[in-house]
């Protein structure tokens, strides 16, 4: 049964491969540009839907805790399904399916459709491989493929805003990926295995933990690292942003749960840091979300705040290992719920903008309101159930005031949702044909969200902190009333902060670095050039001058004669230099003892030996 796990992510990968341009057909050499954007045939468009089915099947068919080891694949992959994995697989598969239907319908006639489908399937494969794969390599491989493919989704319609968002997304994702890579390398080295279980991770050093937090923080939207999120979501097509918000950013939580010693040992400082970060994200995103004009931007900021909440809970769990079992389950449940609701909201916005028959619009609005309430955690909704799950974590944490802070945040969220509904009401739809199937899928999704509240939740959980929700709604009603009476009351506030808030600062910083670099590099370059020119100018005349007959002088006989005689004199000096051994043996005039010595010396074996051995030092 476990090979469904392999099929879960391999199937979309294969489909993505088939979406590649076929060799012989239209992509030939002739007019590849003249044709209008081709509409994908039905069967090819439906690939995106079929892609998610094996994953969904895997959720049911594969028992929890089973694992499939493939030593030959990649660097020894280990596919398995634990509780967290199962929950993540479930809601991700559902989301990929729902969005898939929307893609199949909506993205058939649009330009570069084939390319979008290919990237969609690739992202799906990456996401699923990541969830199903237990070992480090699969996680990192899935993460990388998903991120790169998501880039293709973000910049699909090629507008300048999309391109800019894509660039920011890519740069930040790459930084995230690189730090994740470093972290995983250290984890592998310190734990010794590529299948780290929480107890192996206990003795992790500070650096890997920091890098994991940083790497996945980019994907999760930890505040200073969240800049790409509000830019990417509005720019991406609706189904893509649904998945970005719903499935892809949740991966960070999965990664943390897998690669941090959750529940094994207490990490007071790292846990505290994460919790504080979560808190900051939670409260930072809400006000900016409120002032956004684009509904998708609002949803983006709501995702950021929700992720902040999850980070807070994870931080608390890290600080207090006792909370781990309940906390982990709650976090994954909350993540699943948020994923589905956020996905639904995005798809709803899509339908709101392009739903075909006019009469469907009220149903769409109704659905959106339901989902908004679910997100805010209104009673009788899955949001309440999920929030109920988090209660023990928040209450049991060391920081007593955290529960109060969260309630304030809940108020903020409900305000945000009200703002969202307000904006949706004012969208003027321009219907397009073929929105029947997406509508149906959306309806099913809403039904699922509603049902999940009753299936999973206990009666007590249905009414978790309904008073704060009520307060929020009343407050929202008052503002809505004020805005309804004179529309330009809030005008100065709306659009005060552009979507990519801190990105505004990016341009000046960018310009600054470029100027600084030029100032540094230019003088260096100039100096180098000067040196090179000086050298060439120096050598040039020397080489270029056709050198005259340098040897004419040498050729004159007197000169040659002097040189030759000079050489003879030098050689004579060299030979006569060592006078003792050159003393003539039988010279009448030389003194006798000198003769005896040299004769004695020569007495031994052949002269060449004696000469060299006796005075090797001299040469």
């Amino acid at each position: 049964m476990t090979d469904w796990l392999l099929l879960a992510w391999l199937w979309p990968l294969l489909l993505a491969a088939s979406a590649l341009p076929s060799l012989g057909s239209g992509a030939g050499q002739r007019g590849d540009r003249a044709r209008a954007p081709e509409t994908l045939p039905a069967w090819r468009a439906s690939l995106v839907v079929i892609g998610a089915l094996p994953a969904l099947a895997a959720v049911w068919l594969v028992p929890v805790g089973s694992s499939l080891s493939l030593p030959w694949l990649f660097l020894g992959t280990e596919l398995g399904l634990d509780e967290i994995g199962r929950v993540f697989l479930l809601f991700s598969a559902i989301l990929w399916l729902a969005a898939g239907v929307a893609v199949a319908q909506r993205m058939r006639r649009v330009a570069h459709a084939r390319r979008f489908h290919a990237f969609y399937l690739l992202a799906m494969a990456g996401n699923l491989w990541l969830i199903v794969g237990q070992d480090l390599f699969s996680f990192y491989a899935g993460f990388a493929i998903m991120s790169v493919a998501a880039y293709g989704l973000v910049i699909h319609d090629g507008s300048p805003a999309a391109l800019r968002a894509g660039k920011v997304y890519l740069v930040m994702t790459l930084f995230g990926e690189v730090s994740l890579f470093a972290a995983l390398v250290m984890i592998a080295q310190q734990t010794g295995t590529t299948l780290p279980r929480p107890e192996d991770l206990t003795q992790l050093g500070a650096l890997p933990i920091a890098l994991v937090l940083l790497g996945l923080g980019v994907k999760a939207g930890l505040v200073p690292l969240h800049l790409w999120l509000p830019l990417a979501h509005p720019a991406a097509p609706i189904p893509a942003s649904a998945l970005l918000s719903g499935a892809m950013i949740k991966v960070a939580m999965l990664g943390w749960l897998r690669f941090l010693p959750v529940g094994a040992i207490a990490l007071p400082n790292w846990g505290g840091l994460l919790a504080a970060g979560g808190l900051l994200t939670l409260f930072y995103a809400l006000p900016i979300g409120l002032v956004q004009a684009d509904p998708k931007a609002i949803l983006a900021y709501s995702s950021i705040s929700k992720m902040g909440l999850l980070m807070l809970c994870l931080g608390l769990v890290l600080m207090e290992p006792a909370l781990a079992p309940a906390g982990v389950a709650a976090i994954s449940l909350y993540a699943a719920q948020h994923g589905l609701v956020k996905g639904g909201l995005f798809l709803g916005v899509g339908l709101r903008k392009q739903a075909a028959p006019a009469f469907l619009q009220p149903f769409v609005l109704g659905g959106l309101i339901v989902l908004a309430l679910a997100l805010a955690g209104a009673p009788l909704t899955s949001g309440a159930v999920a929030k109920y799950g988090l209660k023990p974590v928040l209450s049991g944490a060391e920081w007593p005031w955290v529960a109060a802070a969260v309630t304030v945040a809940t108020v903020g969220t409900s305000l945000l949702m009200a703002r969202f509904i307000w904006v949706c009401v004012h969208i003027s739809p321009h219907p397009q044909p073929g929105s029947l199937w997406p509508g149906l899928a959306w309806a099913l999704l809403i039904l699922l969200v509603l049902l999940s509240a009753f299936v999973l939740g206990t009666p007590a959980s249905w009414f978790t902190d309904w008073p704060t929700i009520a307060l929020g709604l009343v407050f929202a009603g008052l503002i809505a009333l004020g805005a309804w009476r004179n529309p330009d009351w809030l005008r100065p506030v709306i659009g005060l902060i552009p979507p990519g808030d801190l990105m505004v600062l990016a341009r000046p910083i960018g310009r600054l670095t470029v100027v600084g670099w030029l100032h540094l590099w230019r003088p260096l370059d100039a100096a180098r050039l000067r040196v090179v020119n000086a050298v060439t100018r120096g050598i040039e005349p020397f080489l270029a001058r056709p050198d005259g007959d340098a040897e004419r002088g040498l050729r004159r006989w007197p000169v040659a004669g002097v040189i030759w005689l000079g050489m003879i004199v030098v050689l004579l000096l060299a030979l006569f230099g060592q006078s003792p051994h050159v003393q003539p043996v039988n010279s009448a005039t030389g003194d006798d003892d000198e003769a005896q010595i040299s004769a004695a010396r020569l007495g031994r074996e052949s002269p060449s030996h004696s000469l060299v051995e006796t005075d090797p030092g001299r040469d």
Partner: protein
Amino acid sequence: MNRDLSLLIGILVSLFAVLLLWIVYITLSAETGPRLATLALEQLPESGVSHPVTAVLLNYRAYDTLLELAVLLAALLGIWSLGPAPAGFQLAGPALAVMARWIVPLAILTGGYLLWVGGHAPGGAFQAGALLGSAGVILRLAGHPRAGLPSEEAQRWLVVAGVGVFVLIGLLLAALGYGFLTYPKAGAKWLILLIETAATLAIGATLAAAYVGGRPLGAAPPSTPTPTEDARA
């Protein structure tokens, strides 16, 4: 510049000369062994000639003489390769013509004698060849364009004869088992004589042709046929 260079060369050369003088003084004054003299003189009877120098030249160190003739031939071939001979001198005046008519036969005769006497007294191929060469020079000066030498074809054979005879005899002796240039005791005298005569002719022709200074011209000279060739042929 040249002034001090030649001075410098002078100093160096004189230094060099002093050293050499010292060396020669030492070696000559020291009583060295008899060198090759006694050995050469003892072997004289078997060498086939009585005069020691001719024995050394044509028997003990015959190989050197062979090569020496080759050097002469090389020089001539070098001269021929430079191009045709320059124009000869105009016909000699009466005094020179008479003198030539007397001197040339005389030179040839003494050459022949010198060749013969070489066997037992100072003389031999080189001195005889030199005389024949001088006869050629006189004829050239007297206006004979080819210095009394035959046509180019013949000249080539004449010039080659010296080295040719020597090498052929050597190879023949080697073939017969005596070894290259190792004369049998009995025939040594006649072999040497044969080599000497061929050498004389070759040296004479070579020196004359060398004096002509280039490849001999085709046409024979208009003047009276000189007595020399037929006398010798």
